[in-house]
């Protein structure tokens, strides 16, 4: 190897490798008990069922996989495919806030009820019922917007919105395909329905104690799927932040009628003469921050 850069990198990797305890990794790779016999059977691939249980045990730390899991996993996979299509779905979202946790994490408390339209990564929400009314969404370019009234809107480029509002959007937007993907990767799934014709498919998913899920967004999810379309009919999420329960989110499918593209754009939710505060006009950035901060303050619980 003549290239001095490659030689330097190789030397670095050699030094790092020299500091690795190969025996420690060897012990970790071996199944715990009964080690020798399981290892031999495992590596030889001689006993199918023993192998499956052993590998699942090592990978997921959950050796007792019930036979229903495969069926539930398949159904969640089909549901993910159904939700990956660029189709519009309207859900009602009813929330239960853990206000102290949200306040500590500087997340604006959620409204009680929302209407949530989704299409792939795009979504738009509006509050329903008492309390401050607003609409928000993510458009086709990944920009986050807030329509504070018909006369004023805030538009943020991806990553520009700031943590509190970003987390608010993360809470209320049902990005179904992404969430179902997370379930497939990190959750143990069980079918809870009897499988009778016409009965909704009911699946309970609990996060696996896997190292990839040390700080999962959700701990427990209960899904009801349409037995034919596999679309999510209802979904209940226990939302966690930094290991603490922050909110319970209950989505119910209301409508699947196609919507025009424009409903996911800020302009659709404003009057023609409305003021849009975005980054195009640097003189307005301060005003955008000011209205964003005022918006956040409106949702802070008043001291008694």
């Amino acid at each position: 190897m003549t290239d001095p850069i490659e030689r330097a990198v190789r030397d670095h990797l050699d030094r790092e490798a020299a500091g690795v305890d190969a025996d420690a990794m060897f012990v970790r790779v071996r199944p715990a008990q009964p080690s020798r016999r399981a290892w031999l059977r495992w590596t030889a691939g001689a006993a199918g069922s023993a192998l499956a249980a052993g590998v699942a045990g090592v990978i997921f730390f959950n050796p007792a996989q019930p036979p229903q899991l495969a069926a539930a996993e398949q159904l969640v996979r089909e549901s993910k495919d159904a939700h990956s299509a660029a189709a519009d779905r309207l859900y009602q979202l009813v929330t239960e806030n853990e206000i102290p946790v949200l306040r500590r994490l500087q997340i604006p408390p959620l409204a009680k009820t929302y209407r949530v339209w989704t299409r792939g990564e795009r979504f738009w929400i509006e509050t329903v019922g008492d309390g401050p009314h607003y609409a928000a969404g993510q458009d086709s370019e990944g920009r986050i917007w807030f329509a504070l009234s018909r006369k004023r809107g805030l538009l943020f480029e991806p990553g520009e919105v700031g943590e509190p509002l970003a987390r608010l959007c993360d809470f209320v937007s049902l990005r179904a395909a992404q969430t179902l993907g997370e379930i497939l990767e990190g959750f143990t799934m069980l079918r809870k329905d009897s499988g009778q014709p016409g009965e909704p498919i009911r699946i309970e998913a609990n996060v696996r104690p896997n190292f990839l899920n040390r700080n999962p967004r959700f701990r427990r999810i209960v899904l009801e799927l349409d037995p034919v379309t596999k679309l999510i009919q209802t979904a209940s999420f226990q939302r966690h932040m930094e290991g603490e329960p922050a909110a319970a989110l209950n989505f119910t499918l209301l409508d699947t009628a196609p919507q025009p593209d424009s409903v996911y754009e800020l302009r659709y939710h404003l009057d023609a003469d409305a003021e849009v505060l975005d980054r195009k006009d640097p003189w307005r950035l301060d005003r955008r921050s000011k209205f964003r901060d005022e918006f956040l303050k409106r949702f802070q619980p008043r001291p008694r």
Partner: protein
Amino acid sequence: MSDHPLDEWVRATAPRAVAYARSLLRNPHDAEEIVQDCYGRLIAKADVYDLPRDGMKLLLTSISNACLNLKSRRRTFFRLVRSDDDETFDDPPDRSTAKPEETASGNELAAAVAIALRKLPVQQRAAIELKSLGHSQQEIGEILNVTSNNAGVLVHRARQALAEMLAPFLEREDA
């Protein structure tokens, strides 16, 4: 004592595999978990693969995928929060990559390489490390799941960036 061919294979490949995963993730704990997971997945298919012959490349492929997925998953979660691709945001630094004794003993180049690698985007870091381990451009593409041309670009950019960052140290070594 080893009495199974795969025992020997694990012991022989583990140091290189763990070092590679640590370098990509810069978090020793996550790296070891991923390597363990990857070994588990490969060994489960030991009757399909010839692990003593092809295992290292398969292992590096599996580790690369898992590490890149983990980093991408963390970015997805924070995508709305942060716009930049600041890796220090989602990865605590691996203090072991720059050992104090390296600096203390005057091995400045070694310390500089560790720091410079950390500054590379993870795909470039993986590409240059695989190149330094003797893999061809095509193999790097297969391991990182990119085209061969793309692998070449990654290696080239990584080498350029490292050359710039390490220039003072390399010149001193030559002198």
